[in-house]
């Protein structure tokens, strides 16, 4: 299609130009041109850069360029002991930081075969699911923002703010939680927390009617979503797409069911799927997932026992045995896997974070081909990537 020179960095490698960021020349027949979307663009989620080759408004080729938010979490992990990596985890994906934080704790617990007290397990489920709802609410808002609807964004942020306040009451942070500890959690929840959570669930259910009237049924919204950005089952396997994006392709794959972790096997919940595999299907799956998360929270609140929140003997400094462990959880965006290799010292030999957004974003070139500029944003929004999670 184009010569090698059009690839970013190719000029630098060939020594022809000192400026790797220079706009690549348009192709010789003048039919297409390049558009750099991002890394600074109002609706790029984070600092993603999409190098688009356009014919008019139609996308001929798209190349996502990532790495602008690379913070070397994996390298940091190899330089700190297990405990000291804890605050990093919630910063990998700051929108569902709790899930990541707890997942890391659970992974290490599995390595060390630590028993987690029942109460702590229930608390973990509640806060993780609250976090999932908050992540989906944020997605809901930003997706609509990408489509040009500003008001739903603020409504959903209003609701999300409630969750953040509820979590703030127990974890002390609003976004980047460091709530989990190996063996339990830092703070116990009180009755007020549970009551607030219950009240919030009722409130959110009430709000859902408004959301549906304002957004779901809206004919403009539907026309922007239906049939746009199809990521079907084959593409999903091809790219290892997971999470709501995969479930929207009709595959009922959810790590909470496939490989139950924590105490998820004790809860009743459905795995919402849709068949369209398009933006609307993803929207549908996420909205339905919020409902399922609320169901789980209700069950957990009903069942939560009294007791300690940490094992009697708290871990201080420990050296896991030599070995490797893969631990997967269902984050708000898909399968989040932690691959820990231990060499027997108190510092991890290797921690690989398999983040869902990385795989989900990888399919963009395929999905975007032939769509329009406006759809780029819509599809990107519907996949719900978090760039820091892609770059780690």
């Amino acid at each position, binding site marked *: 299609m184009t010569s090698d020179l059009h690839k970013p960095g190719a000029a630098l490698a060939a020594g022809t130009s000192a400026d790797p960021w220079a706009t690549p020349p348009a192709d010789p027949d003048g039919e297409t*041109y390049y*558009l750099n979307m991002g890394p600074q*663009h*109002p*609706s790029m989620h984070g600092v993603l850069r999409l190098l688009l080759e356009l014919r008019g*408004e139609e996308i001929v080729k798209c190349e996502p360029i990532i790495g602008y938010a690379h913070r070397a979490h994996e390298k940091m992990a190899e330089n700190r002991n297990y405990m000291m990596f804890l605050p990093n985890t919630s910063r990998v994906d700051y929108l569902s930081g709790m899930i990541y934080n707890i997942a890391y704790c659970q992974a290490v617990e599995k390595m060390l075969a630590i028993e987690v007290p029942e109460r702590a397990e229930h608390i973990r489920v509640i806060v993780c699911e609250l976090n999932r709802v908050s992540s989906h609410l944020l997605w809901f808002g930003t997706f*609509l*923002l*990408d*489509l*040009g*609807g*500003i*008001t739903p964004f*603020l*409504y959903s942020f*209003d609701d999300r703010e409630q969750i953040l306040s509820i979590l703030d009451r127990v974890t002390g942070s609003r976004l980047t939680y460091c709530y989990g500890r190996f063996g339990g959690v830092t703070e116990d929840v009180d009755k007020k927390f549970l009551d607030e959570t219950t009240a919030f669930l009722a409130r959110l259910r009430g709000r859902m009617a408004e959301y549906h009237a*304002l*957004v779901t049924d*809206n004919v*403009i*919204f539907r*026309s*922007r979503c239906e049939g746009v950005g199809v990521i079907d089952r084959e593409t999903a396997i091809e790219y290892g797409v997971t999470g709501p994006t995969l479930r929207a392709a009709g595959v009922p794959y959810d790590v909470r069911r496939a490989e139950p972790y924590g105490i998820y096997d004790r809860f009743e919940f459905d795995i919402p799927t849709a068949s369209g595999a398009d933006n609307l299907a993803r929207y549908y799956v996420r909205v339905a997932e919020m409902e399922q998360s609320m169901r789980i929270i209700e069950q957990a609140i009903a069942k939560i026992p009294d007791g300690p929140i940490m094992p009697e003997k708290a871990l201080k400094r420990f050296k896991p045995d030599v070995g490797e462990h893969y631990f997967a959880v269902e984050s708000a965006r898909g399968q989040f896997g932690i691959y820990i290799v231990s060499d027997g010292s108190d510092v991890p030999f290797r921690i690989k974070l398999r983040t869902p957004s990385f795989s989900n974003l990888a399919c963009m070139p395929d999905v975007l081909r032939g769509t*329009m*500029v*406006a*759809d*780029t*944003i*819509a599809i990107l929004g519907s996949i719900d990537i978090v760039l820091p999670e892609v770059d780690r």
Partner: protein
Amino acid sequence: MLKTLSDLVPNVFLAMLLAAAAIMAFATVNALFLVWLERKVSARMQRRYGPTVVGPFGMFQTLVDVVKLLSKQLISPKDIDKPLYHLAPIVVFVPVVLGLSLFPIDKSFALVDTNVGLVLVFAFAGMGFIAIFMAGWGSNNKYALLGAMRAVAQNIAYEIPLILAALAVTMIARSMRIADIVEAQGSFPYILVQPIGALIYYISAVAETNRAPFDIPEAESELVAGFHTEYSGMRFALFFLAEYTNMVIVSMVATSLFLGGYKGPLLPGPVWFFGKVYFLIFVMLWLRWTFPRLRFDQLMTFAWKVLIPLALANLLVTATVLKVMS
């Protein structure tokens, strides 16, 4: 009898000067007010407060913002098409100012009164997108260019249903003089006679002013700021001013054609006139803060496949009914 400015002020030059001053003053004050209104309405719809600090209900916030914009450095990007880039903010502003002068705000007063008033209004309004295209082309920015291309296509597409809808009204009123059309709406406004025409007109008008859900030329989530991406400071403010004045013009046309202009019980004419105009503007704000944006091709489809056929059918029916009745 309808009086115009030239009736009141015999000196032509003085009259022109006065008219220009009045219109400029109105356009500016109106834009200040509308920006405030937009911010306030949007805020309250989103359950925020909006501006509250400067002045009562934060009304002078926009004034302060204008001062800020005025004091800002004017930044021109490299490699722009200088004449086009610098002219565009002025060109976008001129036609809307001209258009403002043509509406009778009361039974007895309009700034200018001509028997082709309606044609003039649409003619002036049609010039707006030329400026947008100048801005987009001159900016040497791909987002701006995309925005400009969209704007042109959109304006051409929506001008047709807009004029077709207005045409049906002129056929009933048998005049293109705006004052006559208003007068022809005796005891009931034409919206009752032409409900579909009114709707088509209003939708097209929203599209003409490039406002959400038809704001694809600026589409901030895709095109950063569309055609005015590279404009800052006062130049940007002029685009803003033009947009808000444009809203007033299309609402004034709608008021005059479909809502009976200054007519209404009890209250004086200007109150009715501006009341209706601002109500229509409020609805525009309301739409903007409710709906997501259409995609470009959907927008065109909507114009060519829905609005234009409907407008044509409406015109046909009107013509038939008129023929039969006469």
